[in-house]
């Protein structure tokens, strides 16, 4: 494997010679893939993301933390979007950023955070009437149990990265994979049934929260599949997921705007259209970014297949490196 530091291509990206698409770096003229970006080192950048003590408060704790940590262009772009959406202090937004981190190692960090997320997430959701209604409909106790299952799967994925016993590792990954797969479909169904982006009563930040849960499970499923080492199976799962994510991430902005304004149509001048336009445009950017990142994941699998590298060995190699980002050059 050939690794190189991001500095090599950052200047070319700044000049427009290279462009980024998800985790891929491409030549802007030819479209040729130059390589893909990976987060490396066990002390992941994501590790420093803190869960705010009060997820609903407008405090700046989380913003400061994010500002201090985000040094690279990928997270920086996401940070700016989330800031403009005032989502940086929202637990789901942090989960989104963490989940959209470019490495499997990043997901291991998310596992640790899920312990904190579990309590905070439900508190955040409970305080929003509409979601409270949804949660009540789904039965609160069931919801807690379901979240515990996702947390268990995350811990299994985390442990799988450290065990030296290959049989145990396979067992942990298989179990985690089944759980993430199940809950990926579960959150997808909720998102589809509730038409999260077009439900005027559902606050946009809550829609982002539900979307973040779905994406968390998507990444969990793909990562566990990846670590199991059956790249053919990984690619099949990726194909299905890629379609689903594209579907839910492809929003009709006008329909979204109307759903929000119609909700307030019985009041006078109640909709701030300037803010709403910004929020909708930013939502689209976040969803597109997520979509592109997942779309570009297959490239990594192809790269490993071509290079005949075992996924687990590949990750072990990345773990040994200093913290930061690397560009893995195309074959």
């Amino acid at each position, binding site marked *: 494997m050939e690794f190189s530091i991001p500095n090599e291509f950052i200047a070319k990206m700044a000049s427009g010679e290279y462009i980024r698409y998800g985790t891929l770096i491409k030549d802007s003229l030819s479209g040729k893939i130059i390589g893909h970006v990976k987060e490396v080192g066990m002390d992941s950048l994501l590790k420093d993301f803190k869960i705010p003590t009060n997820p609903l408060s407008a405090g700046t704790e989380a913003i400061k933390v994010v500002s201090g940590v985000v040094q690279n262009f990928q997270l920086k772009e996401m940070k700016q979007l989330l800031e403009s959406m005032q989502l940086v202090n929202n637990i789901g937004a942090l989960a989104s950023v963490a989940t959209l981190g470019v490495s499997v190692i990043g997901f291991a960090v998310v596992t640790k955070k899920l312990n904190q997320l579990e309590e905070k997430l439900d508190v955040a959701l409970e305080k929003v009437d509409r979601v409270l209604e949804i949660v009540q409909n789904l039965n609160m106790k069931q919801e807690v149990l379901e979240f515990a299952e996702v947390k268990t799967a995350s811990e299994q994925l985390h442990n799988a990265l450290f065990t030296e016993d290959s049989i145990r590792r396979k067992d942990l990954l298989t179990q985690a994979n089944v759980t993430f797969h199940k809950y990926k479909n579960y959150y997808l169904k909720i998102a589809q049934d509730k038409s999260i982006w077009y439900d005027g009563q559902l606050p946009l930040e809550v829609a982002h929260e539900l979307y973040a849960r779905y994406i968390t499970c998507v990444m969990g499923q793909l990562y566990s599949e990846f670590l199991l080492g059956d790249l053919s199976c990984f690619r099949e799962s990726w194909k299905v997921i890629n379609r689903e994510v594209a579907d839910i991430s492809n929003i009709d902005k006008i329909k979204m705007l109307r759903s929000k*304004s119609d909700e307030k149509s019985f009041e006078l001048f109640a909709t701030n259209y300037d803010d709403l336009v910004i929020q909708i445009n930013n939502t689209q950017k976040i969803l597109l970014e997520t979509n592109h990142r997942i779309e570009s994941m297959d490239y990594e699998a192809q790269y490993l297949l071509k290079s005949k590298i075992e996924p687990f060995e590949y990750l072990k190699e990345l773990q040994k490196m200093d913290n930061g980002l690397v560009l893995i050059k195309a074959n």
Partner: protein
Amino acid sequence: MPKNDTIFKRLEQSTQAERKSICEILKLDDKYTNNIEKISAEFRSVSGHTVANVFRDPHEYKYLDILKDTWSGVKNSNYFNPKVDLSKEMLLENRLEVVFDSILKNTKNTKKFKDEISSCGSIYTVTDVVVGPAGVAGVLTKLISLPITVATTVVGSVTAPSYRKSFFVVVKLIEIKRRLRAEEKLKD
């Protein structure tokens, strides 16, 4: 001509929820939510004097005249801005939008905003029907003409436009314009 005017165009571009809210303001039954002709006729009817309405086509009363009435109401409020061209519908509508924005900024919430708009309608009715003629005649005349004033008030209140309804519908039509403008921005 009137069937192609701004009222019709705006209603055609409105969503069902927006038309429903207009029907509610006009006290029109829900069954008319999709009936643009009925909404237009009712809006013009509540905006015009009853006697004059008899001699007019249901869609004849011009949006510009309704906007002028609305402007007259606003001009008695604290938000009056004298620099306005009353002959251009679009300019007048834009200026009203600015005034409504100022009212919203000042009142800070939509409930108070509604009260403020409502009071603009009230001021207009009181000023023009009762206080105006009496003020010109002076105090003595006011006393002598008291019975006439009372009669004028009674007749006036029966035949006068329902300014509150009219004002609120104007606000809604301007709001539809704002929504359409936001949609254009999203298309960029």
